[in-house]
């Protein structure tokens, strides 16, 4: 199979990246391992803050919109297809479960997104213990209640958002547990938890989850005092980290930046990795908010057009500038400055290598 632009991962970043190149006439192929495109958007019933031109809307609604706007263009959507490897000549190996085939492309964008970090404690492998994202998938995508009485381990805005959804769906959230002494969460989330009567225990960790075959009881250590809760669901909110496998098998150089979620591929101002014609966007390029995930997708799409002789119009250049301006405003200061220093250092490194050849 041949294509101009191959996109690995059809979530918010991949679908955003596809739009401008497709609209300008490139043949685009999107590979996604799920049955339907949209990635994590498909279970996000929360209202998202999005780039200019988009009204605030739920992830579920946005997923459909991003897919629909590609319908009129030459875009091949390969759902239930997984990238499993690469060939020496640069082709990407893909399987649909029954057969394996290769895709040759001029440019490849890898938008694999993020995975959830786990937190281990005695009993964490019991059924009933899952990541908070898994609980949201069960709730909103599979329409199954993940449990009746829950405890949430870890605090971040996404976890609070999902806690809210669990609570509103009839799951009784008994407590939120945080091992640090402070909680870094928006004021309106705190207000909601107060009103919903969900306590946050700081300086607290789980000592053990217990039960015959599944979770029935959780013991916590609250400032040295042991407290027991009867729960059948423990949601681990350990935060997100970029998914790296495709970059690793392609041989992309990696770097560790805690502000961006840990290990991630190095990239330049066009989001091109150390492997030529291989790009990255979205959470795989550093964990960030939905608005910035989409903007990095837009940016990589427009940067690819800019790099092609027949497409680098005035419109493309102007759009690129305005997207960078919007991204600077959209990101948390520490995420933005980590991203900039990553780009700057990589470009310096590459210049040095080239000049010493």
């Amino acid at each position: 199979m041949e294509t101009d632009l191959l996109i690995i991962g059809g979530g918010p970043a991949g679908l955003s990246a596809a739009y401008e190149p497709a609209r300008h006439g490139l043949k685009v192929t999107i590979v996604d391992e799920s049955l339907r495109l949209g990635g994590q958007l498909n279970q996000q019933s929360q209202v998202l803050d999005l780039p200019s031109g988009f009204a605030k809307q739920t992830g579920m609604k946005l997923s459909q919109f991003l897919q629909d706007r590609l319908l009129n263009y030459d875009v091949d959507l390969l759902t239930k297809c997984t990238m499993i490897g690469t060939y020496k000549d640069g082709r990407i190996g893909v399987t649909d479960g029954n057969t394996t085939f290769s895709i040759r492309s001029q440019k490849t964008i890898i938008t694999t997104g993020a995975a959830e970090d786990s937190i281990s404690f005695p009993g964490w492998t019991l059924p009933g213990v899952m990541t908070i994202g898994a609980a949201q998938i069960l709730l909103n995508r599979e329409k199954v209640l993940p449990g009746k009485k829950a405890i949430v381990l870890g605090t971040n805005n996404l976890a609070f958002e999902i806690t809210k959804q669990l609570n509103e769906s009839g799951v009784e959230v008994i407590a939120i547990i945080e091992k640090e002494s402070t909680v870094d969460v928006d004021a309106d989330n705190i207000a909601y938890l107060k009103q919903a009567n969900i306590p946050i225990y700081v300086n607290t960790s789980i000592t053990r989850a217990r039960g015959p075959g599944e979770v029935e009881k959780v013991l916590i250590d609250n400032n040295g005092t042991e407290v027991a809760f009867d729960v059948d669901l423990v949601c681990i909110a350990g935060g997100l980290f970029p998914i790296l496998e495709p970059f690793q098998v392609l041989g992309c150089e990696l770097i560790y930046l805690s502000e961006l979620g840990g290990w991630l591929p190095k990239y330049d101002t066009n989001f091109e990795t150390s492997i030529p014609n291989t790009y990255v966007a979205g959470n795989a390029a550093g964990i960030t908010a939905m608005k910035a995930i989409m903007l990095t997708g837009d940016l990589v799409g427009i940067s690819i057009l800019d790099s092609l002789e027949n497409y680098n119009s005035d419109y493309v250049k102007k759009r690129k500038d305005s997207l960078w301006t919007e991204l600077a405003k959209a990101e948390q200061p520490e995420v933005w400055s980590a991203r900039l220093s990553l780009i700057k250092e990589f470009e310096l490194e590459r210049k040095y290598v080239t000049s010493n050849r």
Partner: protein
Amino acid sequence: MDKSTIVCRCEEINVDEIETVIKMGATTFDDIKRLTRCGMGPCQAKVCMNLVNRIIHDNTDKPFSDLTPANMRMPLKLTRISALASSDQTITSVTSVFDESLQEVGETNREE
């Protein structure tokens, strides 16, 4: 933490087993993998890698930026042998997928 806590759920490797091989001289995820089978089950280190790196960090004071991710091999996801075998005309056999894999990447890591 309780030393019997499972870290790698696929291969059922606990904290104690990982700390033991660190005491024996293991310094990277891949060292621990080779000595204990940690990360060699169906999920291929997707769940345990960061947990293991945290244990190495806590036991050796090595910064996270020195704890490189586990080496990944093809196929990246669970794939039926029949799917690898029944490929399109551009790939002629199962071996082409494995033989053509970027072995240099694996070789380099192994020499460390």
